[in-house]
Each structure stands twice: as C-alpha cells, then as structure tokens.
C-alpha cells in the first residue's frame, strides 16, 4: 500500500526525517541563544537597578553612618565615600560595580555593615524552601481540585470553580492573618510566628500555596475540560477506557502542561509573596531582608536581593522551558 503520504513529499513542512537529523544542532543553538538571552537580561537588570539606586534621594554615605538624622562630621562622610567608591565618577562606579558583580562580590550593606553576598546566601535557603514547598503543595491542591470539579456534577463544578476564583483573589496578608487566628489563636495547633521546626513552616507554606493553587487550579481545570471534550477522549472511551483511566492516561498529562509552563511565573510570584509572608510570620529570608533594606534604603542589599531573585527567576524560566519540552513532544518539533 504505497500511498503518496505527505511525509515523503520533498516539499512537505512536516518532514520528520530531515527534522530529526537537524534537531541536535538546532537544539544546541537554541539552548545557547536562551542562555545568552538570560545573561543579557541579568546584565540589564543589574544596570537598571544600579542607576535606579543612584536616584534614591539622600546621601548614601549618610545612610552608611546611620541615616540623615545622625550627626556626622564631613571627614567621616568623606572617608565613607572613599571607602565605598562613592567619590568616583558614576561611570567608573558602574564599571567597578559590574566587575565586582562578575566576581560574585555584592558589596557591603550600609545598614548591617557586613558583606552582602554571604548575608543573602544565608537567607536564600529559607526562602527557597518556602517557595519550593509552596509550589509543590499548590500543584497538589490544584490537581486535586481540578480532578474533583471536573468529576463532580453541576454543583461540584460550581463549588470547585468558586473555590478557585476565591482562592486566587486571596491576598497573602489577609490569608496569613486568617490562618493565624484559626490555627494558633483559636485551635492553638501551630505557632503564630515561624519557628525553625517543620511546624513553623505550615502556615507560611499554606499562605503562599492557597492563592497559587487557585490560579493553577483554574488553568488546569480549563485544560482538563478541553482535553475531556477532545476527540481523542471519545476514541479512548470507544476502546473501552474507564473514566478513571481516561483521566490517568490522557487528561492528567494534558492538564499538567499549562501547570508546568506557569511554574516559572508561579515561582516569581511566590518570591514576591515571600516579602509579605516572611514579614508577617517573622521568618528570616530574602523577602524580609528586602523589605527591611527598602525601608532603610540599604542600596547594596536591595541590588543584591534583586539580582538574586532575577537570577533565580530566569533560571526557573529556563528550567520550565526545558520541562515543557520534555512533557510535550509537540514542542520539540516546533
């Protein structure tokens, strides 16, 4: 049965054979381009942040010596300026800053008088733990809710969809307060501030995970419903596949695709949420460090946190991209 299938067509865009041969080189090129782009964005972030910080009103040297209110001698100010390189032309300062950044030196904190890089590295673990746990929990919630609401009848669907829209609209600060009131004031189950142990993680993680689960759940439910209405599900049913089997074999995979592609964004919004959550639960981490630094205008710390977050976010986006290509074979051919 030699039918003139289009794939053997010399002029067919979907020639699999040719594409297969060309893939490794193209994949390498694309990978190199993505990494180059990431470095470019990181450099731009550093540049924007650096010049934005020059716009911060007030004399940085004063900030180092305890803020504008403190009585400082001109000599002390001059000494500090020289120490931090603040007496150099701005271009020199910028280049020096880039040079330092390239070697991993983030400068010294004005307020805390310690090197920024080790300070932030110490805070990074806590925030990452919080973000990763929240992301995992949000995924679990979202899948569970989506599975439930696409399975249940009309009322179940409305309930699921209502829960998701409501959850997505919950501000972290309010949700955190509500959780504290319920779980620590009323039930006395969990500490109101984050203690080092696992119990101290529960409320912060819940606070971050619930709104995120609202977003992810809606997205997953939409793609689940789309998949459930797709002809391939009819085909599967016609082969005798059960409803549970259809979800397990077909739908769950389709539903997880947008979830994966949103994880980069989700990670970013978790880091942003960590600012609020770490503050409320008095939990050490990058977010709280950033808020304190913004409040006292500690420029090197702010630049450091921004670069940390941007780097982590960009890395996460790259990973998301990779995960997407692994999960969706169609993207590998595109």
């Amino acid at each position, binding site marked *: *049965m030699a*039918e*003139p*299938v*289009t*794939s053997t*067509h*010399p*002029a*067919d*865009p*979907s020639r*699999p054979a*040719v*594409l297969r041969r*060309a893939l490794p080189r*193209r994949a390498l090129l694309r990978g190199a381009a993505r990494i180059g782009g990431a470095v470019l964005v990181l450099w731009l972030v550093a540049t924007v942040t650096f010049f934005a910080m020059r716009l911060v009103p007030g004399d940085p040297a004063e900030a180092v010596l305890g803020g504008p209110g403190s009585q400082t001698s001109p000599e002390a100010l001059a000494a500090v300026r020289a120490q931090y390189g603040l007496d150099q032309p701005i271009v020199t300062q910028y280049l020096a800053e880039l040079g330092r950044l390239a070697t991993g030196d983030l400068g010294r904190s004005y307020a805390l008088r310690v090197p920024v890089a080790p300070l932030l590295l110490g805070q990074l673990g806590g925030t990452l733990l919080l973000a990763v746990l929240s992301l995992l929990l949000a995924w679990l919630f979202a899948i569970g809710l989506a599975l439930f609401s696409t399975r249940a009848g009309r009322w179940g669907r409305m309930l699921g969809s209502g829960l998701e829209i409501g959850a997505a609209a919950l501000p972290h600060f309010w949700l955190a307060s509500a959780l504290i009131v319920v779980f620590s004031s009323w039930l006395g189950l969990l500490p109101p501030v984050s203690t080092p142990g696992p119990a101290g993680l529960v409320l912060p993680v819940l606070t971050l995970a619930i709104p995120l689960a609202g977003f992810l759940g809606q997205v997953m439910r939409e793609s689940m419903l789309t998949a459930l209405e*797709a*002809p*391939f599900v*009819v*085909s*599967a*049913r*016609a*082969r*005798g*596949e*059960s409803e549970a*089997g259809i979800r397990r*074999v*077909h739908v769950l*995979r*389709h539903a997880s695709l947008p979830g994966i592609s949103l994880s980069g964004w989700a990670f970013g919004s978790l880091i942003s949420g960590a600012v609020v959550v770490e503050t409320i639960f008095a939990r050490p981490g990058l977010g709280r460090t950033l808020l304190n630094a913004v409040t006292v205008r500690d420029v090197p710390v702010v630049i450091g946190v921004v670069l940390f977050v941007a780097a982590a976010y960009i890395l996460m986006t790259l990973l998301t991209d990779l995960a997407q290509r692994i999960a*969706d*074979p*169609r993207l590998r*051919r*595109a």
Partner: protein
Amino acid sequence: MSGARVTGGGGTGPIPTGTGSTGTDPGTLSGTVPRADAAKPRRGPALLVRGLSVGFGGVPGTNPLIDDVSFEVAPGECLAIVGESGSGKSLTARSLLGLAGAGSWLHADELSLGGASVLGLGEAGWRRRRGRDVGLVLQDALVSLDPLRPIGREIGDALRLHTSLSAGARARRVLELLAEVGLPDGELRAGQRSGQLSGGQRQRALIAAAIALRPPLLIADEPTTALDVTVQARILDLFEELLRAGTALVLISHDLAVVSRIADRVAVMSGGRIVETGATRALLADPQHAETKRMIAAVPAGRPRGTRLSAQDRPHRPEPEIDPAVLTAIVSGSVPATAPTSVSAAAGRVVLEASGLVKSFRMPNRSRLLAVNDVSFTLDRGTTLGIVGESGSGKTTLARLLLALEPPDAGEVRVLGEAWSGVPERARRPRRAALGAVYQDALASFDPRLTAGAILRDVVGSADQSVELLDRVGLAASVLGRRPLELSGGQRQRLGIARALANRPQILICDEPVSALDMTVQAQVLDLLDELQRDLGLSLVFISHDLGVVQHVSDRIVVIENGSVVESGGTGPVFAAPAHPYTRRLLDAVPRLPTP
C-alpha cells in the same frame, strides 16, 4: 416508521453471507490473530437498531435529536448513513457505542450488537463491549489520537483493557496491526505521535486502534473527510478489506459520492430521521425523498459546466436570460464571441497572466521549501480557470501571489495586460478593484467587530448598494444588521462573494471557496458563482483540492503537484485523457456517483 427498517443483503457487490469467521479471505486481514469472540458462533445481524430515539435534557422522550431510527447491518456488510451537518448522523454513530454524551437519554425498541441486546446496559457493561464488540473510527486522527502519546500505546490500549496479554505480547500485536493497516516501519511508527504522521498515516493508525481486537462491528464517523482524494481512496480500500474479512461497517458521511464506492446500502438522514434507505445503486438510480434527490443533484463531479446543482433558491428573481450561443461556448470551453457589457473592450482577451512564478520559504531547519515552482498560465476573459492540487501542493501560496499579498521570488503576474507583481503597493492599490477574492474561511476574512452591513458599506459606501449586493448573492436585507458569526456557513460565503463583487471586479480569485460547506450548500454557492459569471462576465480562478468541483466549474484546468504544473489544458480533454500519471491518479480517486 417501518419504512426505514431495512434488511441486509439488498446491495450489489460481493457481500459475504457467511458468519464472518476467520480464514475465508486470503487478503492481508486473514486470521493470523484470534478474534476476541472466535469461540462463540454469531447469528443474525451484527447490529440491529429498532426505533432508536436520542435526545438531551428535558423530559426523556421529548424533543429527540434522533427520532425513531431503525436499521440493521449484517456481517461483512457496509451501511452508509449520509446526511448534512446537524442531521443527527454523528449522534447516531455514538449512540451505538453508548457514547451519546452527558445528559442524554436514549430510547429504543431494540438495540443489539451481534445478537445480544445492549439496551439498559450500565456504564461498566458498555465499557466491556466498547473496543471488543464494536470499534469507532473518528474524523481527523490528528485530534482523535492523543497527541501526547505514541500511537503504539494508543493502538495497544484496547488490548491492555480487554485482554491479559503481557506488555511484550501487546507490543508485538501492535506491530502486526500496523502492518495490517498498511503502515510499514512499525517499530518506528509505534513510537511516533500523531503530529509526526501524515494525515493518511494517522487515519490508518486510528483504524488500527479500533480494530485491535477485531470487533465484528466497526463504526466510522467521517473517516476520510479531512484527507486528500488519493489518500481517501486508500483508506476506503482498507475498509473494503475489513469488509471482506467479515467486519460489519457503519460508515457515517456527508458525502454521498464517497460512500457510494463501498457502501452496500445507504440510509439518508435528515432532521434526526432516516428519510430514505436502500441498496446503494438502487437508491442513487431512483431516489424517492426530496432530501436524497437534493444530495444527489449536489454532487458536482461529472456534471457538465453550467448545469445547476441546486434547486432555484430565489423564485422571485427571473432566471437570467442567457444567450444560448454564449452558454454553448462556455460549456465547450471556448471564449464567448461577444464580450460581456461590464468589460472594456480595450483590455484584450487575456485578463490575468502568470509566467514563471517561483516562491520559496525558509524552513525552520534553514532549508528552503519551494512552494511554487515555475508556474505559468493565462486566464481568458469570461472563463474559469481551475487550479487543482492536493494539500501542500502550493495552491494557497499561488493564490497569495495572484492577489499580490506576497511578491514572487521570480516570474511575473500581469493583470489586464499591465504589470501586477513587482510594482509598489501604492501603484497597485487603485487597480485592486479589478481583482476580487473569495476565501475558504469566510468568517475569518471579516472583521469580527463589524456587522454584515458595515462590511459591505466599507466597500460600496451606501446602504442601498449593500442591499442590492445582498440581493445579487441571494441574501435578504435582514442580514445587514447581523454579524458574520451569527450567519450560517452558506450565508457567510455569500456575504464574502457580495463583498468581493462590491468593487465591480473583472476577475475573482476563489481559494477553496466551498471546501468548508455542506454538499447542498456547496451546490448553491457553485451555482451562484456560475450565475454571477454569466451575468457579470466575470473571469474566475477557482482553486480547489476537489477535482469533482473543479471539473464542474472550469473551462480550463491546471494540475499542480509539489508546486509545479504537471498538466494543463481544456477541462474536457484533460479529464477525458489525462496525460500525466499524477492527474490520472487524482482522477481515479475522485469519488463519483455510479452511473445508473
């Protein structure tokens, strides 16, 4: 409704009357594999449906979408259920597998598969039968196979669900199945996903998945609709082999010509009822019901140029007076002696000329795709040039070159004797009125925010002229206030034609103008184009993948394959004696009604 109930064996052709047991046929589908139910002998029809009604919501039994339908299919027999969109044919197909959908009700006096009643079967009972006792093949395997799973898995699913075969045994069986449906390189194919296969390969894989357990009954819902004619013919061959092996087949289709090739009997559905049924040949030769007559009349293949395909849909308008001499001239493919009035005599005989057109695109892998390769033709005033080719042949790129939406890499387009390609858009713009375009997807070609009235007023300026245009294409003035989204497919295409006419063009470029339409609507639109051509002296370029349509509308045709012209000439001569093997292949594959 006893008239709708038909008994098997009334058709012509070789219908095995045996029990459909294995080994009776020496073809490729002979029984190397034990049938799922080889042990139990089967008696009577493979499928028996009596008084089937299906509907959604409300009180069960009221407002049925399928109304009191009865038919039966014997082993090795093919029953085609034919109807237009919305006739209930697809719902009928799915109801036979208990897949009518959520919120549906079903009532039947009798519904049995292989002699066993399936009425009142619960979901678990249905699940045991689906895939084993009855298989389903859907349209467009790109979406009917899970795009994320290798086709080997999809094909093996029925084995996984209904047998206790080991994974290794299933994999071996999948390879056998792939070979049976005519997909060589099974090892490679089994690991590919639907997106990596061509349309024909996908459809074969989908059929393999449906016949994995050799169900005695196969239901195919528009299984060839999205395919090129040559591929379509091969898929029908495959079904024929299955029939010879004793499988009973219910073939659902909108296209009478396609199914007439393999169907033993045809049931015509309209408005949820079977309005007529009978042996294929007898039914086509002597249709009784108006719907059947309409559908038969709408098949364009083999119908001479100028004959109406649809009933006159505007009785209030007098038939346009046609000079019989002109009509004869058009039919015979020569140029009318008298130029139509709306054309200036100075423009000459050739209105559109393409010479040596080349267009290529950069592919993602940096190679170049030669979409159009050295294409030349001329369009004479008042005639229709048909351009025919299969998907991927470069038809659409050619249309875009003619419409000057893209510049050709080499070659030239001339319109009314003047350069058309290669001049700046600013210079071309005032002359664009000479060239109108009718698109396949009419809906997409309208600004979604605008009403039909605004769309026309954009071009003609006044509401009166809009009404006149609408009348011209057979639309009522009430359409003016509606948005294209609210119009039917046929109405949208008429509106598209009205807009194309608004500039009083001399040439119309029609790119697959009827491909998205039901057969009878297609017939109406083709008749409209024909009528307009005669009334206005239009010259048409008619681009289509459908050889039957092109044959009906064209004076001359150009056959393109892979971007190159393989044959051109007068429609009559080319169809009578195709010179190129590709043209012959295309012609052989064109679905036609058997001549009574």
